[in-house]
């Protein structure tokens, strides 16, 4: 599987996700500068976390207009899998790849901590290695992760099984304390109707190595390798 990681000015999880991808796929990801106007052949496009353009204006808004994003959108529409993490999720929404918006955290504060996620959808290419209903532990680190969608969109996401992850307690219960940012319906990650574009606020690449205290995130990269090769 060949993965590509898009690098924007201000991305800062590009290297982290490349390390996790290389660990699972055994080969280096292509690092693609935002100013490029063409993409090499890729099986997976990752839009990484960070602070593209400093999060100025709105998180993800300026990066969504980068030249490369036109190509990313075209590839995604043509079926290439896209994993959009944290700032990548914000960019994907601004670029119209995923619905909803990510507002300022309800606490108004940046939040960096491990959260527990209920896997709502176990499916290729990203979450097939989790059983639906299991709880995984993955870190978040963001200021704007408060998921919002209007009622109609929310109903569609729920109805079509597009909610992939929800914030829960370690025991799997929905609870205000388990939701780090005020997201509607405790939503932590969603996908497009086809399931090949996944956006999530938590960072699976940050717990994909036992030396860092956990490997729950690794299963997503392993699954991608299995399904996208």
């Amino acid at each position, binding site marked *: 599987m060949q993965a590509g990681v898009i690098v924007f*000015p*201000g991305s*800062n*999880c590009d*290297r*982290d996700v490349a*390390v*996790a991808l290389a660990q699972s796929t055994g080969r280096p990801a292509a690092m693609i500068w935002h*100013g490029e106007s063409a993409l090499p052949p890729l099986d997976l496009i990752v839009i990484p*976390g*960070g*602070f593209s*353009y*400093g*999060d*100025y204006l709105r998180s993800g808004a300026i990066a969504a207009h980068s030249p490369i994003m036109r190509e990313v959108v075209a590839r995604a529409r043509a079926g290439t899998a896209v994993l959009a993490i944290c700032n990548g999720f914000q960019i994907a929404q601004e670029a119209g790849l995923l619905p909803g918006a990510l507002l300022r955290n309800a606490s108004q*504060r*940046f*939040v*960096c*901590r491990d959260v527990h996620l209920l896997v709502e959808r176990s499916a290729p290419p990203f979450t097939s290695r989790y059983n639906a209903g299991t709880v995984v532990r993955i*870190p978040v*680190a963001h*200021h704007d992760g408060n998921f919002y969608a209007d009622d109609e969109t929310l109903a569609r996401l729920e109805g079509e099984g597009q909610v992939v992850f929800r914030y829960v307690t370690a025991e799997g219960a929905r609870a205000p304390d388990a939701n780090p940012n005020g997201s509607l319906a405790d939503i932590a990650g969603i996908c497009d109707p086809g399931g090949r574009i996944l956006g999530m606020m938590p*960072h699976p*690449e*940050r717990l994909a*190595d036992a*030396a*860092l*205290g956990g490997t729950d995130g690794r299963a997503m990269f392993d699954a991608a390798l299995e399904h996208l090769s």
Partner: protein
Amino acid sequence: MSGAAGEVTPEVVAEHGLTPAEYDRVLEIMGRAPNLLELGIFSVMWSEHCSYKSSKRWLKELPTEAPWVIHGPGENAGVIDIGDGLAAIFKMESHNHPSFIEPYQGAATGVGGILRDVFTMGARPVANLNALRFGSPDHPRTRHLLRGVVAGIGGYGNCVGVPTVGGEVNFHDSYNGNILVNAMTVGIAPVDRIFTARASGIGNAVVYVGSKTGRDGIHGESMASAEFSEDAEEKRPTVQVGDPFTEKLLIEACLELMATDAIVAIQDMGAAGLTSSSFEMASSGGVGIQLDLDQVPCREDAMTPYEMMLSESQERMLLILAPGRQEKAEAIFRKWELDFAVIGHLTDTGRMVLRFGGETVGDLPIDPLAKASPEYDRPWVATPPPASVSLGEPGVPLETALLRLLACPDLASRRWIWEQYDHTVMGDTVQRPGGDAAVVRIHGSNRGLAIATDCTPRYCRAHPETGGAQAVAEAWRNLNAVGALPRAVTDNMNFGNPERPEVMGQFVGCIQGMKAACLALDFPVVSGNVSLYNETDGRAILPTPAIGAVGVIEDLSRSATVALKRDGDALLLLGEARGHLGQSLYLREILGREAGPPPPVDLQAERRNGDFARRLIAEQGVDTCHDLSDGGLLVALAEMAMAGRRGATVTLPAGPGADALQLAAASFGEDQARYLLAMPAALADRALQDAAAAGVPLQRIGIVGGGKLTVTDAFTISVDALATAHEEWLPGYMAL
């Protein structure tokens, strides 16, 4: 000479903070009266901040050498060899006053500044820490300052993508009018690609990169009124706004250029911006420099040479490029959407010549100005030794005391703070905040750096020499406690007005103590920073020599954390229990007194016990360790229990028939050179034997297990109840 209007009168000289004697020296060096621009340059170069004129004489006493030290003080940051062809580059710096005025931006730009000191030497920053001191929690400004400082540190560090992995926070009313914000950055570079400010190569281009120059930080007081119009106040923001996004681009662009052979020398523009950076580069390289100020990228219209030379705008660097490398360098900075301008060249005149609008507007000799800055041997008086303290009755049961200590402002959990810092970005944070030292993996290896900051200001006030030694010793201990070999320190000396002999005496005492500890522990000082005049209405802060320490872990699978891990592990106390309560938190929080001498620091015992603890971890596989500091034995044990969500049963190391006060002293005494370790019984037996053979005080005091903490013959309390007390205070305080 024109272009720098305004007359240099005695008032103007005074407004620039130069004494009459210093001004005489200026006249001597110049051989004529300086114009306003030149005077401004002298004033910033000879400011306390840039010249260290009050502290230099004493800083020289600190040990700075060891075989593993590559660059000690004098460079932008200290550099040590950490093996495998790599160097760790680190420094700590204060942004106290700006953070008091505007906590968010003050703290944010403090982080930005220290990051630049580190990557300017070729390192990729890998960790940030922060040592913070606030006023009393009851003071009306404390909440606002704490909220703003933490948000600012996070706002900057999170955006640049460097994990903020540790630090320390104290509250004390002596900081009500002078908070301390000390930021530390650690970076890693290949040993053969370390960059310095040493300019060389006559004719080489002087290049300005980064953000544009605005009228930031040109302070009202040090400014000649003659030169400015009515709306001077409006035009001249004294608070600088940080732009972490530009900093991130600057890091990437500089590191990309550093991988080529284009850079001869590089220097960040810190305090006193273009002035100090250009002087430092020319002076350390023994060359002259000519700057064409028309080429300086400006953010605003009609900026004067005075403003350009004195601006403290952030996110700017100065480079000397090798011949023929300009195009390559420019392409890199353009790619990262940063300004790039050739603003001058090196000369062989030994002078700094400033050109603007076709005229020479300033002409100063470099060496006399940079090297002959004033140096004062300020009068000082030693702090009188503290009276011993006689303690009455303990007053409250041990259990109540423990709960109160765990929830007191100086010991309560800092989770509310570090959760606002991205501490896991870069994918190498092995030990997150909350332990003794943060541990960051050296990327792509199984080795790590351990990093901690420490200082106990109340000890420093009671007895500066002991306090200075204790700060170094505690930092050293925190590194040992995770299994790291401590290597070197950086310091941030925060004191009051050095013109007062008592304050100067505190400074001298702390330095003496630090010196003794650094020597005894093979722990040289490789960089540092001094912040003086931290006082309001004649009342100084507690003397606060903050220590930032770095150590190396050779094998991350052989390191320790504070969390209790297995039921049945033996609990071993390493070091002697004397029950010293003078200056302890128990005395302050429970008995309501800040009194007595601080715990004595026995450097031989520190060394022996620390080496023993480290070997248990690195050689015998012990994986659970915590050093004892504020709050003593029971606080440390409670912290281990909370971290591991696991209980223990212990017997206090007090003799039989101990009275209530002796039990409190055994529980909460702050004797130094101590560690609490947990390990399986077989390892414990062996450790006890080895210790006995080596004459190291080590005793078994209990066993791990269950969900409760039991102190034999005293009390039992659930770990959850401890955790609730410990976790609730700060969020509760900040919610108000």
